[in-house]
């Protein structure tokens, strides 16, 4: 196959922000997750936990709580506002000021008609959910002290509110508090500190479960207001609770990074009476677990250490299957790196700024396994700070490196770069139509900018030295309202392909300025698409790891793709748990497809036989040990290189050298604050 010079880049110090809250919608199987910087992420649990949508955050927006009402998603935060998100256009739809100071919690009734928020000033405010907006209805009886957590009884008559040092039960109809349950403070030094009831859950049998800052999970009788049972779970805080849909299982997240499971079972075999029994402890986090979701089969947790962990409950799933494997989602499922192939430049996208780097150079030659002496070190050419408080959604660098575009929820910005004496100038007059850009992409000759807009449409803008002109808008015929999350053009400038979260892939003929074809819809969401520079085949990789090759000329799947589908992909390939996020092609050998996920990159040689189910998929080590003549007999199409970990981008430069951008998890971990102190053995 051959040798590659690899630029191993580790200076992209991307740092995801801490997970603050999450909400799981069991109807659509979507998990909404919000981070400390206000960014919202939607994961599709039905489709391999693929991160479908991202709405970037905003400076100063601290979201504290999330709530699904049907398909609608609401959030509330310490800025005192309630926000509903527009998940089709990936932006906040509107915000409503609650006028109660910072909001700590949000919840809705089971019927989805009312929304309530708990405020710093001690009020619980009710909002009526209307079709296009929400409207303030009334306040419940105002309390002294903030309302930190809320839970609505499924019947809708009672509301439990966690406060400082106590839990209040309100009658939802009258708005009066009916019970006051005092929560004991911690022992020792924390005796003097108020205990915060971080989370409450109101079960249909009128049991109230609370988690508090003294490390207790307490079971209360909501009708009498009496304490039933106390479980001391941690020395630190119990920060969040989540109850399964059938109310038979409960999980609590602590500051120690553990998730403790309780189950409603009889504690002894012959005993009829059931009670909440502490059953399992999961330790998948190093820091505070701030958010939890109890799905039907799994415990989903996230917190300060920024990783989303899906831990299947082994009594709910079949053992030793892919379903029972734990997943840690540490890096985004979309590319934050853009590589200008011709110029050898890298664009790194951070939430609030962009960086342009030039890769280093080396004139040495070496044996495989060597590190070459670096003649010219990589240098940071430009750091561009985002304007306004909005965070960056998408960014692109033109292949020649002279144009840079980025978009936020409210605007698109275009810059012209010059490198001989580095300068950056903003292109001030942008066409009016270019206001939304979920995805941005430059044509390979850098003369056009494509920006995906509302309802899967794409706006085409022509660029030249003097001006920036709107050309036309490309629209799909399907009428999908979902946003485009993937956009790519062909090397020859003829084709443009888009993929949206409805799993549709549209291909436009740029010469004729119209839709060329729609690829047959596959059930799983595309995670990476690319058009082959010479054969004009479209290669699509889906969240379920399937690979398709579609001939744009013939408008049908290629022979190779059919063969691949007929034979099926290798089981080990299908078992990988991170999506392929980027596909590119070798300029030297048209039969080569280069793609990568978080833990490997792979070169698919279409001229070689496909691996059969019995063959060794990861066979590079075996081939290395074989003499050259025998290698050909043992090699197959999938050349997988696992030398690199936590890969964010693999790209091929024009000089045929690879750029691999890694972001080692250890480096990310080292940037986290110190976790709570724990007594460890021999310390």
């Amino acid at each position: 196959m051959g040798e590659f010079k690899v630029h191993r880049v580790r200076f992209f110090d991307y740092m995801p922000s801490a997970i603050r809250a999450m909400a799981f919608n069991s109807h659509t199987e979507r998990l909404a997750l919000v981070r400390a910087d206000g960014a919202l992420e939607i994961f599709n649990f039905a489709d391999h936990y693929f991160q479908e949508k991202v709405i970037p955050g905003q400076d100063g927006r601290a979201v504290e709580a999330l709530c699904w009402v049907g398909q609608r998603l609401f959030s509330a935060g310490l800025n005192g506002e309630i926000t509903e998100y527009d998940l089709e256009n990936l932006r906040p739809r509107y915000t409503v000021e609650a006028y109660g100071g910072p909001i700590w919690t949000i919840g809705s009734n089971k019927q989805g008609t009312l929304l309530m928020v708990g405020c710093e000033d001690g009020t619980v405010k009710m909002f009526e959910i209307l079709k296009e907006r929400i409207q303030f209805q009334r306040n419940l009886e105002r309390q002294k002290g903030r309302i930190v957590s809320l839970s609505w009884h499924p019947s809708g008559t009672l509301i439990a509110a966690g406060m400082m040092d106590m839990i209040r039960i309100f009658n939802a109809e009258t708005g009066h508090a009916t019970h006051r349950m005092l929560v004991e403070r911690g022992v020792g030094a924390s005796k003097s500190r108020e205990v915060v009831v971080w989370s409450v859950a109101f079960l249909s049998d009128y049991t109230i479960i609370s988690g508090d800052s003294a490390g207790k999970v307490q079971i209360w009788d909501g009708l009498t207001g009496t304490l039933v049972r106390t479980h001391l779970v941690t020395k630190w805080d119990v920060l969040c609770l989540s109850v399964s849909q059938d109310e038979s299982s409960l999980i609590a997240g602590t500051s120690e990074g553990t998730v403790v499971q309780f189950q409603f079972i009889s504690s002894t075999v012959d005993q009829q009476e059931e009670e909440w029994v502490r059953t399992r402890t999961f330790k998948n986090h190093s820091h505070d677990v701030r958010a939890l979701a109890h799905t039907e089969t799994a415990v989903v947790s996230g917190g300060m250490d920024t990783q989303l962990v899906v831990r299947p409950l082994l009594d709910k799933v079949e053992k030793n299957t892919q379903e029972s494997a734990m997943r840690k989602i540490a890096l985004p499922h979309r590319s934050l790196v853009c590589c200008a192939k011709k110029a050898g430049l890298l664009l790194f996208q951070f939430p609030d700024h962009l960086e342009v780097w030039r890769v280093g150079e080396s004139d040495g030659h070496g044996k495989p396994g060597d590190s070459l002496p670096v003649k010219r070190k990589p240098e940071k050419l430009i750091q561009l700070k985002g304007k306004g408080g909005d965070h960056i959604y998408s960014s692109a660098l033109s292949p020649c490196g002279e144009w840079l575009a980025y978009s936020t929820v409210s605007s698109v910005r275009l810059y012209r770069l010059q490198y001989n004496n580095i300068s950056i100038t903003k292109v001030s007059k942008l066409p009016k139509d270019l206001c939304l850009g979920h995805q941005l992409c430059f044509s390979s000759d850098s003369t056009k900018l494509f920006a995906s807009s509302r309802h899967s449409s794409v706006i085409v803008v022509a660029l030249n030295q003097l001006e920036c002109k709107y050309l036309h808008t490309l629209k799909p015929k399907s009428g999908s309202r979902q946003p485009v999350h993937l956009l790519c053009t062909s090397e020859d400038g003829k084709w443009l392909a888009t993929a949206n979260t409805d799993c549709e892939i549209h291909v436009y003929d740029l010469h004729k300025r119209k839709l060329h074809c729609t690829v047959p819809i596959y059930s799983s969401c595309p995670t990476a698409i690319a058009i082959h520079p010479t054969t004009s085949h479209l290669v699509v990789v889906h969240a379920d790891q399937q690979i398709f090759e579609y001939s744009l000329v013939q408008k049908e799947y290629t022979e190779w793709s059919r063969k691949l589908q007929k034979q099926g992909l290798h089981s080990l390939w299908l078992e990988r748990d991170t999506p392929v996020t980027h596909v590119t092609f070798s300029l030297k050998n048209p039969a080569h497809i280069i793609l990568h996920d978080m833990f490997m990159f792979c070169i698919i040689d279409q001229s070689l036989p496909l691996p059969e189910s019995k063959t060794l998929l990861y066979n590079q080590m075996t081939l290395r040990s074989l003499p050259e003549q025998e290698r050909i007999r043992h090699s197959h199409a999938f050349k997988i290189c696992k030398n690199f970990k936590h890969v964010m981008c693999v790209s091929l430069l024009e000089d045929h050298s690879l750029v691999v951008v890694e972001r080692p998890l250890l480096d990310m971990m080292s940037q986290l604050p110190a976790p709570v102190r724990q007594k460890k053995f021999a310390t």
Partner: protein
Amino acid sequence: MAALYEGYTLCGLVPGQTLTNSGIQGIEAERDSDHVVVTDSTRSVTLYKVSDQKPLSSWTVKQGQTLTCPAVYNSQTEEYVVVSDNKVIRIWKDEDILLDKAFKATVSSDVWRVHCLPGGEPVVLFQRGAVRLLDSLLSAPQQPIEEVLAQEEAIRWSTNIVADSQQFVIFTTEQKGDSFLYLHRLNPNTLQRYRLEREEPGLSPLSFSASYRDKHICLLYLYPNGHVYQSVVSVRGLGGDEGAQALPLPRSLLLGLPVGEGLLEAASAQLLDEAHVAVVGVPHPSAGAGKDFLCIWNTNFQTLQAGKEMAGKIYGQLWTFSNKLFIPHGKTLSVIPYECPKSSLASALGKLNNGFINISVNVIIYGFFSLLTQRTNRKTQSAPSLTVDQVLDFTKTAPVEEVQREVEGLLSRADIQDLQPLVGQLASMLVSRSLADPAFYTPSTLAQLVHTQSLCHSVCPDLVLLALERRDFFLCQLCLQFFPDIPEAVTCACLKAFISMPDTEAEKLSLEPDSVSFMETLIARERAPVGLQNGFSSTSTDQDCSDALGGGGRVVIKTGEEDKEKSSTPPEPICPVGLHKAVLLNEVLLTAYSDTFLLPHLKDLSSQHVVLFLQYLQFLYLKYSQDASPQMHGLRSPSLTQIMDWVCMVLDAHFTVLVMTPEAKGLLVNLHSFVKSQVRLVSELGKIEGSLQELNKMKVKKDVGQYSIEIIELF
């Protein structure tokens, strides 16, 4: 522990005109460790092969000429160098038969010595202190030689040393009662002069010995009053103020040897290694005033490590080459091999497993002891109380009861500060009297003295043997318990006495209650649920036996069957010896020892005794493996390791005998299975260790920086 081995005679001596002269001028190493060149004090040089004890060749100068310096061997040129009549340097080779025909050169000044180290160049030291390399001297033999020493200064001793490829000539001089040390470095030449601190007036060092270690030259010298001093000179700080005033040479007292009556006359101390000194011509501390002893002392702990009486007169000469001491005595030159293993406190005191710290505090260091004795004597003289000396005299003659009373009174008096020397003196007095007078024996007094924990074996070496002789086993037990330094031979004698003692006699003894109660509980204990210690369980053992011995002889098969029967109802181990006997045996097990010295003595046991002892050890082992923790804290009890060590040693010592003894078969089979289970455990542990090490290795990963350009190859 250092040891002196059986010596042999290298050659006879022709004593000189006066009896003080051994007739040997010097001994030098030759080509290897087995050859030496002996120069006699008159005319001849003889080459000996030491292991063959025979001369290989001999050279003599003409009648009327005398050799004035020991011949040395230059290993680089394979030549011998000697000086005759102070001024004539003679050089010859092995094949030269006649010395007269060999190379001669006359120099202009009197030569003191020619020195040559293996691999070094010969150096000539003149009587007036000048130093020349032999080569440069021979290039112009008549070159003027300067005078370094003062008028009345004369060289007493000299040597040369190679330190970090620097050659040094070291010599000491004496001038009007003062002693000086000269350190002459060659290439570049520097000379440093040190003044030795004065000992008591009129005393000048009897012998010197020098060695080089850790960048320091270490000089050891012995005074007639028995004091051995050490001075350390750094090699680094040399040079600079050449020829300046003599620097005072700091010294430290290493040993205060017992001198007996009067001062030492012909004695010598040689450094053997950093911790050991060989001394000749000094009395043995426990053998009266005779000075004809060769001893090895440990300087770190000031303990006597080995001693040997040399027949005939000692001339105070001693050489050492490659673990052999060369010592002229009487009419022979003897070669005595010795061994000085690396010494630690543990090995200096023997192998100690229990109560180490406790005991080591109470160790009487003999060197100190003699010093202290002198001091005490002085002190008691100055502050007269009718006490110590009187009691000491009293013990020599008084009847048993009165001695007991007096000693008790003396011990109970709190004002005696230096109890240790007193107890030592008392004990040796009592022991020697008891030995001399069969009617005299004071068991309780001796027990009391031992109880003070101020005694040790080297203070009165005959105490244990006396106790054995008088069958005072309680005293034996006490001694075994409190003496840290019982020699292996004595331990073995105790073991032999204990094991051969009839049980009826043993039960009459009154023994130390702690150890008795331990044995009582051990024997009486109900069988606890089978626990595993060290991976051994008695039930699995039985199965192992039958497995392991499939295909063995008939006898063995029978044993296997027996074992099978047993395995159905695992037998309660029965103690093969009586309670008190077991207590005494435990005391032996607890004693410190080192295997090398114990093994030969163990061979003295008869086969019945060996079988009995092994049975007892097996019993202990079984008991120990059954119960999770039979060793009770606070009670004296042997540890499992001690038991296993003894089993191994006894088996080693008597293996062939045991194999031939039919009644020992079952025992051996059982022991074999113990070993098997232990080996299995160790091999499992080894596996674990291996995998843990692999884990360690796996963790090592190349550190990748922020950026690198690498070459990878895909196939």
